[in-house]
């Protein structure tokens, strides 16, 4: 899980062009949107693409997005629960 979280942080930084931010500076439990990393709606769409492209997970139910993309930790949990080992 820790390895996945670290990998996710690297992917998010790269995919969202979070200049100057290192994986260590992202708390896995901190909110990605609003007060946390301050991501916006376009970033949310990029995260959906990231989940599909990298992990083969399509987020089809918009209502689940808020929960899945709450933090890096919740994203990692969703990946763990929905991908075959």
């Amino acid at each position, binding site marked *: 899980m820790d390895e996945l979280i670290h990998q996710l942080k690297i992917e998010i930084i790269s995919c969202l*062009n*979070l200049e*100057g931010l290192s994986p260590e500076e992202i708390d896995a439990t901190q909110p990605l949107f609003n007060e946390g990393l301050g991501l916006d709606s*376009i*970033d949310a*769409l*990029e995260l959906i693409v990231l989940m599909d492209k990298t992990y083969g997970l399509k987020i089809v139910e918009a209502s689940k997005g808020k929960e899945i993309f709450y933090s890096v930790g919740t994203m990692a949990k969703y990946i763990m629960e929905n991908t075959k080992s």
Partner: protein
Amino acid sequence: MDHYITAFGRINSTQASRNGKRFWSNQEGLKLADSLKAIYKILGMNYLKFFKMDEMSKLGVLGAEILLKDLNLTYQAHEIGILMLTSESSLFTDQKYFETISDSQNYFPSPSLFVYTLPNIVMGEIAIKNNLKGENICFVQDQFKSHLLFDYANYLLTRGSQKALLLAFIDVTKNDYECFMILIENNIKNNFGSFTSSRIEELYCNE
């Protein structure tokens, strides 16, 4: 009412300058993305949204920063407009976006690229960064046309809806890039010539 060119700036693959004075030279032969980052740092900007923009918007935002950075303009937000000219439009980003949808086996349209597949987005980014709420218009022409910029700017200024205008020519291609900007105001102090088509042409070609 007479109007004057009160600031001008340029960024291209070899240099960045303000009012004819070079403040950055591309001595290391940096490519576009790294050049823009280097100029961002030199200007002392702290605007993280910059890194999420496409190259054309970055170029425009840097060009506006060069002009407006040290000016304490006292106009109201709606009194400053933007006129932009481009010959390449957003083609550079359009192609990048196309790469994300061209392979049916690897079809992942990029939302963050898609939002920049219009040239007038540059003006939006400049307006947001500098709180400019005046009129704006983007012309796509085959080349730099000083008379077009002058005619439309003159129309806005004489009509009185705008007190100051940012005029920009911005182009990005795979191998080259250019941003030329001038600020027009009714301010005779520290000006760089009367606002005429020939003066715009002169600054564009010679400075």
